[in-house]
């Protein structure tokens, strides 16, 4: 079982979700920064897991901090403030953007691409284990990356880098497919590293 990362708090579209990462004292064990890194595969539980889960990728991280811009002096030190106004401290949060790239049904069947179902608010977001990632990609005797075009065409400055991170991760998890993955990685690497500098592509 993977690490619970947080809950869905908002969505921008059918496939674009915002998850608030559990803060200190909100969940045990609290997720560490390495658990919600860019390019992390996550499950978004559908109806508590009864309808399976959406599979998503963390594509962005945003920090919420109401203190930002308040430059005036404080009457109480922060440690004392925590004792009297715990709600105030909770307004600080880490939000991660998740793009849905498929679905794992309750019976384990895998679908890649735009999922038909949408997650609810407060749906649990759980980091996928290596085995779950392998199962999501390698089925019917072949490696599947049907969602890669969705990533490449995301309207986001990190879209290509995200694809590259995914390919590298899969190359490590599925060494038997490393040659095929390297072809795609090489192209993305050229487009992310040389293309922007004026290389012909």
């Amino acid at each position, binding site marked *: 079982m993977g690490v619970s990362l947080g809950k869905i708090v908002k969505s921008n579209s059918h496939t674009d979700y915002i998850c608030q990462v559990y803060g200190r004292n909100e969940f045990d064990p609290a997720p560490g920064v390495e658990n919600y890194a860019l390019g992390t595969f996550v499950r978004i539980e559908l109806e508590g897991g009864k309808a399976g889960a959406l599979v998503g990728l963390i594509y962005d991280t945003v920090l919420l901090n109401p203190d930002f811009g308040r430059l005036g002096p404080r009457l109480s030190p922060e440690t004392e403030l925590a004792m009297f106004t715990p709600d105030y401290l909770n307004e600080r949060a880490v939000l991660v953007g998740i793009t849905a790239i498929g679905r794992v049904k309750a019976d384990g069947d895998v679908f890649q691409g735009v999922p038909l179902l949408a997650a609810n608010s407060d749906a649990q977001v759980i980091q996928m284990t290596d085995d779950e990632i392998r199962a999501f990609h390698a089925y019917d005797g072949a490696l599947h990356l049907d969602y890669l075009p969705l990533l490449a065409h995301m309207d986001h400055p990190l879209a290509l880098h995200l694809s590259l991170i995914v390919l590298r991760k899969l190359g490590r998890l599925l060494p038997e497919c490393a040659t095929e993955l*390297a072809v795609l*990685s*090489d192209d993305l*690497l*050229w487009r*992310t*590293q*040389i293309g922007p*500098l*004026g*290389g*012909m*592509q």
Partner: protein
Amino acid sequence: MSQPLGRAKGPGPTPHSFLFVSPDDEQKLKVGEFITYPVSLGGGQEEPVLSRITERRPVRLYPNAFSGDPQVDPNRIAAMVGYQGRSSELFEITAEVIGYYDRQLKDFVNPRVPPRVGTPITLAENTYLSDVLSRCKPDDTGAATIGWLLSRPQGEVPVAIDVGAVVSTHLAIIASTGAGKSYTASVLIEEMMRANNRAAILVIDPHGEYNTLAELPNAKQLCRDGYRPEARIYAPGDVKIRVGTLERGDLRYLLPSVTDRMDYMLGRAYRQAQNLSRQRFNSEDRWTRAELLGVLDRIDEDAEDNFDKGTIQALRWRLESTIKTGKGQIFDDQEQTSLEDLFRPGRCSVMQLNQIDSREQQVIVAALLRRVFTARMRTKNGEVGPDSDYYLPYPVFILIEEAHNYAPAGVDIVTTGILKKILAEGRKFGVGVGLISQRPGKLDSDVLSQCNTQILLRIVNPIDQARVRESVESVGRDLLAELPSLTKGQAIISGAAVNTPMLCQIRPRYTRHGGAEEDAPRAWVTYADSALARQREQDSALLQPTGRRNRLYKS
């Protein structure tokens, strides 16, 4: 089966071309190189489809700035900015489909559909190419192995051209000066003189550069089982043309400034001389120079006005001064070089025409070609026997250097008609012609286009390139684009004698090359050195008195 070097991308710009993509790390996919892809012919049968690369276009290149400092490897810059990919270069390559080889048809059959996307593209294997590119195997009867495929290591894929096709459907060797025309022609002659071919060849050599073919009998590579090729070099005075074999057009062509009236008189005299010959020898080509002049004299006697007499005298003077017969002359009243001497299987005759006036050269060639063609026609039709002047019982091949002098563009000369006739009908009678020229632009386009096998070496002149492009249909534009960049000894071979056009490296000659240009600076230096040495010798002779002088001094 070799490893795939690329994968098919899709159809190409023309109906029979396709595109494939390759990093070509080992730089094997050159323009002109042969590649294959598999095609299923049904029933589980799979055949390689041969294709030729016509264009390569980079689709991935570093920014120019990466190469801004010649001291810095752009790959290092790329690695520095995070690119550690497999290949910094990627090419989109266009290939023209030739087809799969049908062993029953002995030809390529185009599958008419491009390869499916993703079909593996491999470099054609040497053994496969050796098998399908040439119409015959080296050492087969009829094979002339003149070199090897340019894109492959020496000797890996021998290029054997079909001598039978060359003789029956003619040959053109075209190149700029110094690109290796006579060298290539000599290699072809050597191959045709091998024991497996034993051709009957005559070389028309206006510059006297084929004299080293006299070494043919000494070339061990050509001898086998007691066979040794013969070579005969006919110096300018050695070949005899009997005057009677000249046509009226030949005479008119040789005579300077012939007026219409003179031409009329010449026609009358020529016909009467032919009639006399027919009455005496039952053949109209045995008249002599003296007889022709005698006929003219009789016409002169019968002439009624002084104008005609003047015309006849002028014509007589022209004939006497131009058509000279006898010892040391090319034209002769009785003698003529026997065709069986000039042509014999296993013999290469070289007729040197240097030091001979160009018009005379043309008339000699015209008379000879006419004789050869008539002889082959009559022999083949059973009209003549072994005792006839026109008996030639085997096919022959005539290689003509500076062919543009014998079939010039835009004007008909004495040789044009007979050359065109041989090119059109020679196949039926076994008379093959090989035309060699450095100025295809000056060569009659009909003549060039009737040569169905082409050996094209470097051609730089745009007019010559254009003439080749319009006359040589079998070579694709991609290969013709290579013409100016070919180096010495590299040739495009196409046409009837090979299965598909290809770039070939001509093999080294067995005999010495006689067509090389004079090394002027070396000659100057050698001369100057020897002159200087002579001068020094003379100077030192003055400074060192002889013993006798010493004695005189003493006395």
